[in-house]
């Protein structure tokens, strides 16, 4: 297992955001994390990337416990995070954004640059343009490309399709698949359950901070409860 969470509990003051969450992601997998707003999906990602400290439980990455490692060191370990809402640097050019993504690579990052430009040709065209002037879909591409610059082994996606035109959502999901095919493991948080389940190998369903279902994606796609709650079908 590349990533493993064991009985993780996270609190925001008196609120228990995650209770007894255990999940695992294997090398080369795409794993989706589904759930309603406030179910704890983003909190799970934030716990993995060190932005939030669990009160109990452990997070193992590549066999090492990382639940006490500060977030900037988590990046250095090989976990990239594409934050919710894209969060590109609006006043830096596309190229400068990518350079910031490679901040931890003190030396040469031209190889990574070639790689992300071949994944996202549109970014190569706009390398001199300010990030803030890109369209929403292009900004999402930039956010993904930036996180790839640190050569992560595991990439965490937080709502990559949020606020994007349907056409772009397709492109983004296609790109996520390509990134996995190039060898990066992916943990994906997504509102768009149908798309996510079609993309993922396995999925977990979170409700009120607890994992209530875990199975192969194609199995969950057929599950009446999932279909009712997340795929917008009437009560089954």
């Amino acid at each position, binding site marked *: 297992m590349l990533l493993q969470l064991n009985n993780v509990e996270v609190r925001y003051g008196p609120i228990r955001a995650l209770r007894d969450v255990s999940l695992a992601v294997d090398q080369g997998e795409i794993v989706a994390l589904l759930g309603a707003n406030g179910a704890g999906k983003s909190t799970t990602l934030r716990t993995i990337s060190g932005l*939030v400290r669990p009160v109990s439980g452990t997070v193992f990455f590549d066999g090492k416990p990382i639940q006490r490692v500060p977030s900037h060191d988590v990046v250095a370990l090989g976990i990239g995070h594409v934050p919710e809402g894209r969060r590109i*640097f609006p006043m830096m050019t596309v190229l400068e954004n990518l350079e910031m993504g490679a*901040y931890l690579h003190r030396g040469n990052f031209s190889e990574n640059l070639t790689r992300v430009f071949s994944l996202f040709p549109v970014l190569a065209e706009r390398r001199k343009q300010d990030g803030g002037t890109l369209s929403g879909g292009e900004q999402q591409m930039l956010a993904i490309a930036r996180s790839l610059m640190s050569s992560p082994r595991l990439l965490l996606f937080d709502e990559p399709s949020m606020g994007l035109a349907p056409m772009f959502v397709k492109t983004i999901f296609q790109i996520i698949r390509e990134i996995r095919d190039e060898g990066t493991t992916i943990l994906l948080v997504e509102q768009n359950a149908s798309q996510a389940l079609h993309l993922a190998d396995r999925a977990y369903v979170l409700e009120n901070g607890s994992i209530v279902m875990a199975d192969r994606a194609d199995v969950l796609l057929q599950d009446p409860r999932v279909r009712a709650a997340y795929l917008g079908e009437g009560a089954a």
Partner: protein
Amino acid sequence: MSALASTTVSLFRSARQSAHARRLVACLLGLIVLAVMTGPSGSNTAPVSGFTGSLFHPRVLVFIAIGLGLWGLITAQHRWGEALKRTNDNLMTLPRRMMPDRRVRLVLYAALLAVAILVPLHVNAFWQDVLVDQIGIYVLLAIGLNVVVGYAGLLDLGYIAFYAIGAYSTAFWTGALPVHPPMVLNAFWAIPFAIGTAMLSGVLIGAPTLRLRGDYLAIVTLGFGEIIQIVATNLQGVTGGSQGVIGIPHPDVNLLGIHYSWLIDPLPYYYLLLVFVVAALIAYSFLEHSRVGRAWTAIREDEVAAQSAGINVLKYKIMAFAIGASTSGFAGMLEASKISFIEPGDFTVQLSILILVLVIFGGMGSLLGAVVGAAFLQWFPWYLKEHPMFGFQDQDLYIYLGAILVLTMIFRPEGLIPSRRRKREFGLAEHGLGTADAMSGTTDPVP
């Protein structure tokens, strides 16, 4: 009189319909209020004399003229906004475009330095004092605050606290305080202690508070500035209390066969200050273009994104805070040992705000802007003092400064000499993309 009244009435009437007329009324009223506020004061026997004395004095005409001019400027900006803006930009970036070449720029900096070295030799003693106490010190303070506010985007409203800490630690190490140091140093050797103490307190204050963002940090630093001043006033046994500290010795150096004593002549202080200003400029400009500077830019633009790029956000924020604090601490040391006397009243919150104003006026994030902005805004009131215009009075200084600031914010919000990046940030912010200033930075809660 009735003619005046009927004109006023018709102006107000047309103001209902036309935005132009409304602006005209606003400009004129504003300037007339300014005229009354800066005019003579009333007295017990003639309470309205202040009012009539300013309204019916030829001086009011000057204010009306300024109001009309302001109205003209605003109207012109509305009508030919884009063209004016372009001209304005062209004018302001002229120096930058004229010296894209590194060598040309170096020559210009050398020329500026030569002016800075030679000017004080040709002015009288009064101006030499102003050059140190009012201009030099504030230029240094602005350069330091520019690192905090302009580079890292941290809104520090208690910057003067570190100036106070530098001054009081100089007083401590030279034995001028009621409490005595382990060994009494002369003020020159107190420099590293003043800088070190200020830097340490910057780290101590920064470590817990810099986890906060935007507005929260501003409030905490504002409180810290107040606390330092109150502690200096009330901790009598240690700081000498509200009476202040007298007899802080002048610096004196005896090193490698060089022996020099600073006395009351302002010039030697000026040159000591100049050395530190130039050193700070070189060091900070180097930092700006290093990895550290890039991390600061990232933090300023989006803290969450900076964090997910693997930047140790807290470390770089504390670093910026500590650099600013130590700069302020040195300024405090120099001023304390030059004047020989400090009191808690020297370290008011207004001064923190003033230095912030200098930085914003000059152009946040721009070293040249901080220097020129601070030098100009600190020189201007003293110039007015020597060459009184329109019945200028000292106590009205902040009214004029306020007016200058309002004008700057309307016509040149990015400051006098903005850094190239900051300029872009303001350009984008105008189109509703992103935020351009430390104040509105990312204030969303962490979870």
